[in-house]
Every structure is written in C-alpha cells, then in structure tokens.
C-alpha cells in the first residue's frame, strides 16, 4: 500500500524498545496537553478515569440501597430518597459507566493499536465524544443537585411526565451522552474499515475488534432512536405534546416500545465488548489458537442483529397484543444461540491448552460461570408464562446483575488487568489481585443469588418495604454488597500502589500474539516505530514471535524518522491481496 507500484513490500523485523523513556504518557506535559489531546490513548485514559469515578458513585449508591434494605421498614432513609437513589444508581451505572466502559475506555486505547494504525479515523471527533460525554455528566449532576429523579432509569410515562423531580435535565443528559456514544460508534466503524495496516485482513482481526465492530453497529443504529424518544419525552414535559401522555390522548406503551427499541440493543452494547475481551484472555492464557474464530466473530454480528428484534419482551405485561408477545418471546430465545456458540467455543479453546491462571484468566473463568447463570436465567425470563410470574421481581434484578456485573464488569476487570501493564507500563501485585478477584466472586454471589430466590418467591423490585419473611435473604444480600465494597477497595489499593511502586512491565508480559504486545509498554505516541505488517492470525501461538514483529522497511512508510535497527532481519513478501488496508 505504501508502495502501490510494485507488488512486493520490503519488510523487516523491528526490535521492541523496552520501557521507552518517552511514551504517550509523558511526551507532552500539562493539563491542557491532556484535555485537548487528539491521541486515542490519552482520550481512552480520560474515559477510563471518568468511568471509574462513575462506578464509584454508582457503587456507593448501591451500598446505600442495600443497607437501607437491612430491615423491612425504614432503616436510615425515607421512601422518597430511596426512589431517588435507585434511579440514580441505574442512570449512573447505565449511561455513565457501563455503556462507555469497555468501548470508549479500553476500546479507544487498543482499537487503533490492534489494527496497526496510528490513531482512530477521526481523532477530533473522538475528543468531541469525550467532551460531549462530560457535558452529559454535568447535566446529570445538575439534576441531582436540583431535586434528583425518582422515575427509575427507564423514565416510563406517564409517571415521568407527572413527577415533580428533575426529569428534563436528566433525560437531556442521557440524550447528550447518546451523541457521545454515536460518535464513538461512527469513529470505530470507519477506523476498522479504512485504517487497517498491511496484511490485517478481516480474518486476522483480533476478536476484541470484531466485538467492538458489532457494538459500534448497535450504537449507531439504536442510539438515535433513544435520542428522539428522550427528546419527545422532554417536549412532552415542557409543552405537553400528547404523544406519550395518556391524559392528552397519547400512548404510554408507545413510549415503552420506543424506549426498549434502544435499550434492549443497548444491553448488547454493554455485553458484546465483554465477549471480545474474554476471547482475548482465554486464548492468550491457554497458549492456543482460539477454537472457532469465525463462529465467535460472526456470532457477535448475529447478536447485534437479533438484538434488534426482541425489545417487546420487556412489555409482556404492559398490554401489548398476545400475538406480539408470543413472537417476541420466540425471537428472544434466538439470542441464546449465538451466545451459546461463544461460550462453547471458549470452553473448547481451554481444552488441552496450557492454561496459566493469572489474574486476567481468573476473571475470564469467573465470567464464564456468572455470565452463564445470567444468560440461562435470561432465557427463562424470555419464556412468556414464566415471565408473567417473575416480571418486575428481584429475579429480574438478579438476572441483569449477573449479566451486566457478573458478565460485563468482570470482563472489564479482566481486560483492565490484562492491559494494565500495557497502559501504564507497570505490573500490579499478582497475589493481591487474585485475593481481590476471589473476594469479588464470592461477594457477588452472596449479594445476588438470594435475589433469585426472593424474586421467585414474589419480592417485587424497586420496593422500599418488604414483608418480614424476606428479611434474612435481604440481609445476606446486603452483607454481600459490603463484601463487594471491600473487594473493590483492595483492588483500588494495589492498582494505585502499582502505579508508584510497581515493577516495570515488559512489552509482552503474557506472551500475547496480537499487535498491542508488539509495541512498547507504555506505547509511544504514534503506537509503532514502523507500519506493522501482519502475516499470521492473531492467535497463532504455535508460530515464532519474531514473525509477529514485522514492519515495512524503508523510509517511505510515513514513519521515516526511524533509523535502521541493529541486527534487523529483512524479508520480502507478496503484497497484492494481502494488503488489507482498504
């Protein structure tokens, strides 16, 4: 591609400079160099910091909720405050934490590197997306300061048009954050299509990128519908346009259709990138080619597609027609197929691999257990007759926490530990990391398993009071939430400690074969000293690692400042159809 005249590329192995003194973290200094950076790694890091803060806030609110539920009546807050807190917990965790968590933070940092590109296609749009996200967060904070919101994160009409709380500013915040999500999606799609380095064909893309691609498609197709829905809700409250408000002749079920047309696909925005991380972790720590590359890659797209056809399963008891309930229930089961394909392929990858149970792999195993429980209970909820019994109970709460927290958050933590050495160039303490992973795993189950039991016995979600029979279960669950808090505190301590006192990380601590391990830790400003050339698949652990460190030789490759390395090894490959750049 650099040399389109001839059909051969001169390539060479480039040695990796370990722990370069000048890297993306310190090549420029000062607050402004961060706030106005166009570097995808820095933007990703700012996102990472933001979502950690959001997760901390949302987590504190959750602990508050659980503590309140210690006794059947009021424990330390009143019922209205309780309604505000569970709404805020939902809004913060969904819009501020989990939707941007993996794509906008880890994805932003690693997508261009894994493609062998210098940056995403539109760096300024990328920065804009971060600023728009921050603006949305400001709106959310404003709403908290001006009365809060007590509608639940779903903002169902007619309550959301009647309540006295700050619905307009909160929904505007979510509307604005939607644009940030769209910008990330547009950017990732264009980057994956147009910015791949020579040899990076679709079949050599790491599965994390396939999952980000599927996620971006959902973001781009679903988020605008949320945008228009929330805009209509704002207009409903401000002007009374009567489309959703039954008092003015509108239809509240139409609102639910609109809302879930986005918000059901949105749960795949949350979980599909997690699948991508798990694919990376399982293959790297099994030292083995992933089983069923194409099955995993295409099942992400299948989930993205089917995910658009199932929103009606949120409205089985909202008065939609029986026929649509039956059809939606049937379609819901279909999502289980591509998801099951993934789980079975991961398990098969483990078979006869040489498994090393480092912390990221531990998180991958935890993910497999928790996500499978969450997924199977989801199938049960999709069954029409069972759903009528379990609708709006703690069973649903437990189900989506198993999927969202047990799935996405644990995969995110796995990814965070996996890439921590690459992002910061420091190793964390393996012992404490494993201790905290085990505590989190136990604590998670202590918190949410009792909720399945309570839910099936009829404990409704979002209730401030409950009958005394449920008290023991609620107390177990509350203790679990405190244990989760302890696990996260330990994690915060050893991660922060590693930044100051941690050992320097080598460029490839886990023996990965994807491109981010073929550059320095932390990476240099332009990711690579050379334009990488890819001649193997992303998980070819049976091939020598030097064949993964190839780059275009010569000065005409757009990175001409690199002088010839010593002992470099040069060879020629046919380019032709192997150049996957466009």
């Amino acid at each position, binding site marked *: *591609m650099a040399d389109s005249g001839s059909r051969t590329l001169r390539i060479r192995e480039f040695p990796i400079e370990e722990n370069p003194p000048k890297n993306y973290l310190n090549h420029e200094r000062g607050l402004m160099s961060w706030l106005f950076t166009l570097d995808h790694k820095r933007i990703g890091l700012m996102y990472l910091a933001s979502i950690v803060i959001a997760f901390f806030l949302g987590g504190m609110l959750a602990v508050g909720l659980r503590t309140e539920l210690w006794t059947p009546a009021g424990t330390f807050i009143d019922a209205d405050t309780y309604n505000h807190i569970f709404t805020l917990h939902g809004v913060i965790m969904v819009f501020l934490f989990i939707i941007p968590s993996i794509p906008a933070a880890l994805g932003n940092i690693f997508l261009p590197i894994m493609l062998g590109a210098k940056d995403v296609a539109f760096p300024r749009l990328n920065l804009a997306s971060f600023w728009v996200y921050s603006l949305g967060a400001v709106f959310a904070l404003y709403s908290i300061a001006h009365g809060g919101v007590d509608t639940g994160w779903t903002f169902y009409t007619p309550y959301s048009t009647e309540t006295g709380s700050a619905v307009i500013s909160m929904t505007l915040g979510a509307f604005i954050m939607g644009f940030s999500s769209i910008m990330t999606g547009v950017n990732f799609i*264009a980057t994956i299509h147009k910015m791949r380095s020579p040899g990076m064909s679709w079949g050599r893309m790491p599965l994390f990128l396939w999952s980000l691609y599927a996620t971006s498609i959902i973001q781009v197709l679903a988020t605008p519908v949320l945008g*228009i829905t929330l805009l209509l809700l704002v207009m409903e409250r401000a002007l009374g346009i009567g489309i959703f408000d039954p008092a003015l002749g509108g239809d509240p079920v139409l609102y639910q259709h609109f809302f879930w047309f986005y918000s059901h696909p949105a749960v795949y925005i949350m979980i599909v990138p997690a699948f991508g991380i798990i694919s990376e972790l399982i293959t790297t720590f099994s030292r083995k080619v992933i089983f069923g590359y194409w099955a995993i890659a295409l099942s992400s797209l299948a989930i993205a597609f089917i995910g658009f056809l199932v929103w009606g399963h949120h409205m089985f008891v909202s008065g939609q027609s029986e026929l649509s309930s039956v059809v939606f229930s049937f379609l819901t089961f279909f999502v289980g197929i591509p998801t099951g394909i993934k789980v079975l392929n991961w398990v098969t990858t483990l078979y006869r691999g040489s498994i090393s149970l480092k912390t990221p792999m531990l998180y991958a195993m935890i993910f497999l257990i928790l996500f499978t429980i969450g997924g199977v209970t989801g199938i049960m909820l999709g069954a029409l007759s069972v759903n009528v019994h379990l609708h709006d109970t703690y069973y649903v709460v437990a189900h989506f926490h198993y999927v969202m927290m047990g799935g996405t958050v644990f995969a995110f933590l796995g990814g965070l530990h996996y890439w921590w050495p690459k992002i910061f160039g420091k190793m964390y303490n393996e012992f404490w990391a494993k201790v905290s992973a085990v505590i989190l795993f136990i604590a998670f189950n202590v918190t949410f398993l009792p909720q399945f039991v309570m839910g099936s016995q009829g404990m409704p979600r979002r209730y401030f009071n409950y009958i005394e029979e449920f008290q023991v279960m609620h107390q177990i669950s509350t203790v679990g939430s405190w244990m989760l808090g302890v696990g996260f505190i330990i994690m915060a301590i050893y991660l922060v400690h590693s930044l100051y006192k941690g050992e320097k990380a080598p460029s490839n601590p886990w023996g990965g074969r994807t491109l981010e391990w073929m550059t320095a830790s932390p990476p240099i400003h332009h990711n690579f000293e050379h334009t990488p050339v890819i001649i193997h698949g992303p998980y070819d652990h049976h091939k020598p690692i030097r064949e993964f460190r190839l780059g275009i030789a010569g000065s005409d490759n757009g990175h001409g400042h690199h002088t010839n390395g010593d002992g470099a090894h040069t060879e020629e490959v046919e380019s032709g159809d192997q150049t996957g750049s466009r």
Partner: protein
Amino acid sequence: MANNSGAAEKEAHLAHHFVDSEQQFEASKLGMWVFLVTEILFFGGLFVAYIVYRSWHPDLFEQAAMTLDTTLGAVNTGVLIVSSLTIVLAVRAAQINDQRQQLIMLGSTIALAITFMVVKYFEYASKFEAGMLPAGLYTYEGIEHELAPVFYSIYYMLTGLHGIHVIIGIGLISWLMVNAAKGTYHSGYFTPIEIVALYWHLVDIIWIFLFPLLYLIE
C-alpha cells in the same frame, strides 16, 4: 492537526495518521454515510409515531392535512431539490478547480436554504395565528377530532427537527464558502464539500418524504 510524523513533504490537508489522501477521503466519506444512517433512525422514531397515530386515526390525518398549505409545501420541495443540484455542482466545481463556480454554487445553495426557511416561517406564522399549536397550547377549533392537537405535535416535531437540520446545513455551507474563498478546495482535496453535500442530500430527502406524508396523502 499536528503533523509531527516527520515524513517528508506531506500535503497540507493530510492528517498525520492517514497513509495518503485517498485513505483520508474514503474514511471521511464512510464516516459521513454512517452518520447519515444515524440521522435516518433519528427521524425514524418520529416517522413511526406518525405511522402509529395515522393508522389509529386516519380520519384525523385526512382532515388535518387539509389545513396545511400544499402550494407552499410544493414550492419548498422544489427549492430543496434545486439546492441539491447546486451543491452537487459545487462539488463538481471543486473537482475541476473552478473556484469562482464553487463560490457561486455554494452561495446559491445557501440562498435556496434561506428561501426554504422563509417560506417555512410564513407557514408557521399563519398556523400559530390560527391556534394550531402543539398539543398543550392548541386552541384551533376547525377540526372535529379530540386528538387534533397530537397531529400538530407530530407535524411540528417533524418539520421543526427538519428545519433545525436546514439551519445547521446553512452554517456548514457558510463555513465551506469561507474556506472556498481561501482556495482550500481543489481537485486533490474536496472532502468537506463532498461530505456536506451528502448531508444536504439527506436533508432534502427527508423533506421529500415529509411533504407527501403530511401535505398530500388523503
């Protein structure tokens, strides 16, 4: 954008992270197409609201369509279609390095867009006067249907959102004119004109759907 890659003599418009102009052009164009898809879904929500309420109350939509001024709507349709032509001619002018033609065509597009908004202003003004306002403020008595206010809510949301897109388009095309006057665009680099033209076509096409749905269908 900072070009600190150290490569020799890159063209001024080429951002540092692209290999060549072609890659940059194709990436920008794909990005715009994806953005247009999001726009279609954004309006799609309102079109669904239109379809739902129309199928529930066909008689209301028939009566209400009579209150809209078909002549003004038709004029505006013509205005937007011609503006789509002028902006394509601006792209063409950039491709053949004709700067004067670029400025004329971009200027005509802005003039047509403003014409559209002026016509729209008169349409809205006469509706406001008659009390045909969105639901909460509705006072008109000429339609015998309890949900008449909801029709106007949908009408104002659709045409209002479209109008906002026209105004954004005017801003974008003005920005193009400023750059075109400096001679930024030429046969080697016309990406911004091309992608703004794509956006403008979308604004045009949405109106082409709105016009029959709101004004004509009986």
